[in-house]
Every structure is written in C-alpha cells, then in structure tokens.
C-alpha cells in the first residue's frame, strides 16, 4: 500500500508524538534511534498491507497494533531511563528515571515522592546557605521582642525583628544540605539498582 499525503502525515504525526514523549525521559540520540526503529516497523507494515479502499482504517489498525505513542514511550522510558541512571549516576538521569517509574508503578510513585521530599529539603537547606553572602542580614535565627520566630532565610525582615547567628546557620545549613543531598541521591541510586536487578528477573514493560 502506498500512502497518500494524509496517510503520510498521520504516520509523521505518530512518530512526532512518540519522539516528543521519549525526549521527556531519554537522551536525544537514544530517543531518535528508538523512533527510527519504530518508523522502520511502520514503513514495512504499510508496504506489505494490501491496498484498501479506506486507507485511514488500514493505517489506524496498523498503528493500534503498535500501541498509542505515549504508552509506547512510557514502556521505553521505564526500560531505558533506569539503565542510564544506574550506569551514569548523574542527577538528571536519576530524576528522569524516577519520574518514569513514578508514572508507571504505584511503588515507583511512593518512592519517588519520598525522594522528591529529600531532594527538596536538601535544596532548601543549600539555598539558605547560599543566600547568606547575598543577603547577609536576612539569614540566621529570627527573634522578635526576645521571642524565637524561626531560622533560615527571610526575604524581608519586618521592623523590630533581630537576626542572629547568621554564619552558624549558613554553615549548619550547608553541611545538613550536603548530607541530605548525598543520602537522598544514594537512596535513589540504590532503589534504581534494585529495580534494574529485579527487572532482569521479571521482564516486560508494565505499561503495555
């Protein structure tokens, strides 16, 4: 079967959606290779399909057999993002893998949420430490009329509020932030390694 202009545009649309979804989780070159393979599959299926009066139905049938592009992308991402994160250990790759798992499994969602809280806590502590040199008078322990009101960074200090021990708060925040980041990232990598090992025993993407 030779595709009409409309059919060709439908195939390009499918591949475009697949590539867009894959790029959310995967490196550009990895996504491009996956799309190229799926395109090869579609082209061959189209070529071997007998010409039909309704090209649209034939094409729909063919693409339905392959699965919707977002589901196919999810299956790819769950498989590949974890491997990339385990092998590289990079923060970006780890985040992509955690997002992919969170979207695919209930356990992935729960673990991803816990790790997200860890990463956010680390980021908050490191931001407090980083703000001290920029806003020297706004980081520290906050007191109002001798009463303790909180610790950390406050963008605007109201009249009457006293901020003390700024450099101590900066140092403690930096150390705690670094430790929290290290522990959270270590836990994330351990979880992803576990997922990778388990998957070798239980093959098959969960989403398809």
């Amino acid at each position, binding site marked *: 079967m030779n595709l009409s202009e409309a059919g060709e545009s439908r195939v390009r649309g499918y591949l475009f959606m697949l590539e867009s979804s894959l790029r959310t989780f995967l490196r550009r070159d990895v996504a491009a290779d996956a799309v190229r393979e799926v395109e090869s599959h579609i082209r061959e299926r189209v070529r071997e399909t007998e010409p039909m009066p309704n090209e649209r139905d034939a094409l729909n049938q063919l693409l339905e057999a392959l699965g919707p592009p977002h589901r196919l992308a999810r*299956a790819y991402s769950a498989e590949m993002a974890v491997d990339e994160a385990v092998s590289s250990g990079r923060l970006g790759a780890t985040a992509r893998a955690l997002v992919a798992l969170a979207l695919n499994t209930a356990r992935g969602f729960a673990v991803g949420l816990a790790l997200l809280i860890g990463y956010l806590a680390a980021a908050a502590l490191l931001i407090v430490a980083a703000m001290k040199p920029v806003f020297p008078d706004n980081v520290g322990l906050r007191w109002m009329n001798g009463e303790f009101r909180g610790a950390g960074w406050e963008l605007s200090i109201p009249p009457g509020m006293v901020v003390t021990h700024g450099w101590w708060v900066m140092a403690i925040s930096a150390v705690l932030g670094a430790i929290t980041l290290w522990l959270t990232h270590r836990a994330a990598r351990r979880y992803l390694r576990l997922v990778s090992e388990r998957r070798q025993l239980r093959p098959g993407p969960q989403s398809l």
Partner: protein
Amino acid sequence: MLTGFPMTVPADSWTEQLRRGGLELAILLAVAPGTRYGLEIIRHLQEATDLVVGEGTIYPILGRLTRDGLLQAEWQASAAHPRKYYRLTDAGTRRLRVMVQDWRMFASKIDRLVQAAAQEGGK
C-alpha cells in the same frame, strides 16, 4: 492502582503475568538461529505463540536486552528502508541456555503436580 496486599490473582492477570514472563525467553529464542530484525521477531512469535499482544511491546525489551549485553544490534540498509538487526552475543547464548534449562525444569515440576492432582482427583 495501589497494590501490595495479598489477594487472589484473577485468571486474566495470571495469564498476563505468565505471558510477560515468557516473552524475554521467546525473544532470545527467536534470534537464536540467526540475526532477525524487530518485525521479523514479532512475526516469528505471532506464528508460533500468542505472546505478542501489542507489537510495540517488543522494541523496549529488545533495547533492554541489547543494553544488558545479551543481544547485539546493528542497522543495515535494505531496498526500502533501514532495519535494525539483532543477534545473540556470547553472553546471550549462555543466558539463553540457562533460561531454557530453568524453563524445562519448572514446566516439568508443574506438569508433575498437574498429573498428581488429576490422579488424586480421579480416585
């Protein structure tokens, strides 16, 4: 969607799990005789089994088996369009041997149980 409490697995779900569990072995067996590209593997599996429900299921698994070093992939130009061919690596051959052995042992044990249950039920 949330699971984790022990419960009876519905028949459809059990069949689905069995199908998924066998798919990796089936893919390795499909490329054991020689190189094959994705669609060829799908056709081969569709002819012999009902393991392939969604055709797209195969490609992510092929990608993982390649990254695990069990398959080697290579793009080759053909008359119409390029195809990505897969073949077993040495590690893949060794893994396949172990998987086939495990599968046979597992199947024979379950068979024995099925026969024993049938005989006891017939008494």
